């Protein structure tokens, strides 16, 4: 099954030109973010007041300019990009894992358990959940990346749970599942060996769409001053800093804003492409 997912992505995604371009852009962004310490002699935290507020330029010592404290904007933006990527991917992984477990269990169990589990999802869906995240992020130790991760990941699992539950409900009726049950396979093993591989396609597609959401939630919290704290920076906190100084030093805003846009755009377009290829419901 894993092989067939790879095969269909390999043969069908290249025909989806936008998604392919997005995948390339994403790969380039990740590579630059990781290689940044080798690309610039400046460390993200080094303060050089003599160079403070110098504008960007190709021949300049700081080619994306410096901020109010003379810190190199390129180095800091790339550090922010790494933090945002890390938080986005980990939070997406956690929330997708919760969603898959919840949805597969509800769909496979069926009946009353299914009804009550999905009722919980419905209720949570209707609540202004972001407010809860804001409260969690504010009330507990600020800048604690783990609390931040937990708060963000707690929002993202609902959609995955719905999708997986729907798929599992359909799979449950199939002969091969019935055969496994007739042969005495334990439920946990059926879920792991037969259900999971069959829902993997759509899950991968929606996981790709969850990553930019998680990145946006994190940046949103950091923008409000509730997320990652100094000296660490994420794209959101850099944008918030840049917005304060944009009148005199617009590059402080434009550098992280451009990176965040490129990142979320490439992930969204790639996710849409993967969904077209991997989700049977959207296949035409």
């Amino acid at each position, binding site marked *: 099954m894993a092989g067939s997912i790879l095969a269909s992505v390999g043969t069908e995604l290249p025909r989806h030109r936008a998604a392919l371009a997005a995948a390339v852009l994403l790969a380039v962004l990740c590579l630059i973010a990781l290689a940044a310490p080798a690309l610039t002699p400046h460390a993200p935290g080094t303060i050089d007041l003599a160079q403070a507020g110098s504008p960007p330029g190709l021949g300049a010592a700081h080619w994306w300019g410096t901020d109010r404290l003379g810190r190199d904007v390129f180095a800091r933006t790339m550090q922010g990009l790494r933090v945002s990527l890390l938080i986005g991917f980990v939070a997406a992984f956690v929330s997708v894992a919760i969603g898959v477990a919840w949805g597969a269990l509800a769909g496979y169990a069926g009946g009353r358990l299914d009804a009550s589990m999905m009722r919980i999802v419905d*209720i949570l*869906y*209707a*609540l*202004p*959940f*972001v*407010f*809860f995240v*804001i*409260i*969690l992020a*504010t*009330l*507990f130790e600020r800048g604690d990346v783990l609390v931040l991760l937990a708060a963000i990941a707690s929002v993202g699992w609902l959609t995955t749970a719905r999708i997986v539950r729907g798929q599992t409900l359909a799979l449950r009726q199939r002969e091969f599942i019935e055969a496994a049950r007739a042969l005495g396979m334990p439920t946990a093993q059926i879920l792991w060996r037969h259900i999971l591989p069959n829902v993997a396609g759509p899950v991968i597609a929606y996981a790709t769409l969850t990553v*930019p959401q998680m990145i*946006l939630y994190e*940046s*949103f919290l950091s*923008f*409000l*001053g*509730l997320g990652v704290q100094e000296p660490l920076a994420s794209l*959101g906190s850099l*944008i*918030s800093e*840049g*917005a304060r100084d*944009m*009148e005199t030093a*617009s590059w402080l*805003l*434009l550098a992280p*804003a451009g990176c*965040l*846009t490129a990142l*979320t*755009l490439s992930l*969204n*377009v790639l996710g*849409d492409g993967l969904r077209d290829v991997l989700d049977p419901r959207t296949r035409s």
Partner: protein
Amino acid sequence: MMRHVLARIIGLIASLSLLVTAAFFVIRLAPGGPFDEERTILPQVRANLEAAYGLDAPLTTQYARYVSGLLRGDFGPSFKHKDVQVSELLGAGLPVSASLGAAALVLALLCGVPLGFCAALQRARVLDHATSVLTALMIALPAFVLGPVLSLVFGLRLHWLPAAGWNDGSLEQAVLPVVTLAAPVLAYSARLARTGLLEVLGSDYIRAARARGLGLRRIVVAHALRPALLPLVSWLGPAVAFVLTGSLVVETVFGIPGAGRFLVEGALNRDYTLVMGMIVVYGVITLLCNLAADLAYGWLDPRVRRY
């Protein structure tokens, strides 16, 4: 139908009480309190303060008091804004937030839905591709990027519009914040309208209508538009939550005196009653909009009324 409505209303009340209870205890159990300041206050003063605000009672008693106050429409006094009731603070901020949010929602739907329908009718032609690029961009640009960038370009560089401020919601002040808030909602509604119409146009009864020789325009207007709107309508509840969240950022970016700042500010200051008031009000708005979307769905699609 009556049973359907009744069940939904009971569900709404249940969700609301869950929200209020969970929020109350999460906020109270978090470390810190409203009277923690850099300047330490005398133990007696603190005890008097806590007694005056009823914080010395057991938590469950406080909860019961708060809920009974809420039922009488009393949000309690603010802990940080001296001598001010939470309802006064919210009363000053909410009209501003509401007009901002409503304007953004109306703009988004008025532009997004026709755009999506046109894209669907022009499938795989220039307009369709342009729409999909535009919506992808609008979804990727969060309010905290779009807002400052619009303010920089149109406010500080081109001087066409004010960069920030509200000035009682005058038209030129409102353009940039409303556009910022509307952009992602516009993009989502355009996408939903497009896929909704495409799905309906591919269905058997439309093919049957075409086979009988009805013109495309007649088919779209008379048979396809209503069912094509269904996915959009069921998304309206989350859309309102989306606008409320976005307004927190937009109000910060443009310095608008709405209610949004009370949530973050109140949570940071441990202003318990203010945060609770915000959650109750925004929670009620979200849940009511979900209910309205639900009922509208039943009205548009007679099949769901049976349940």
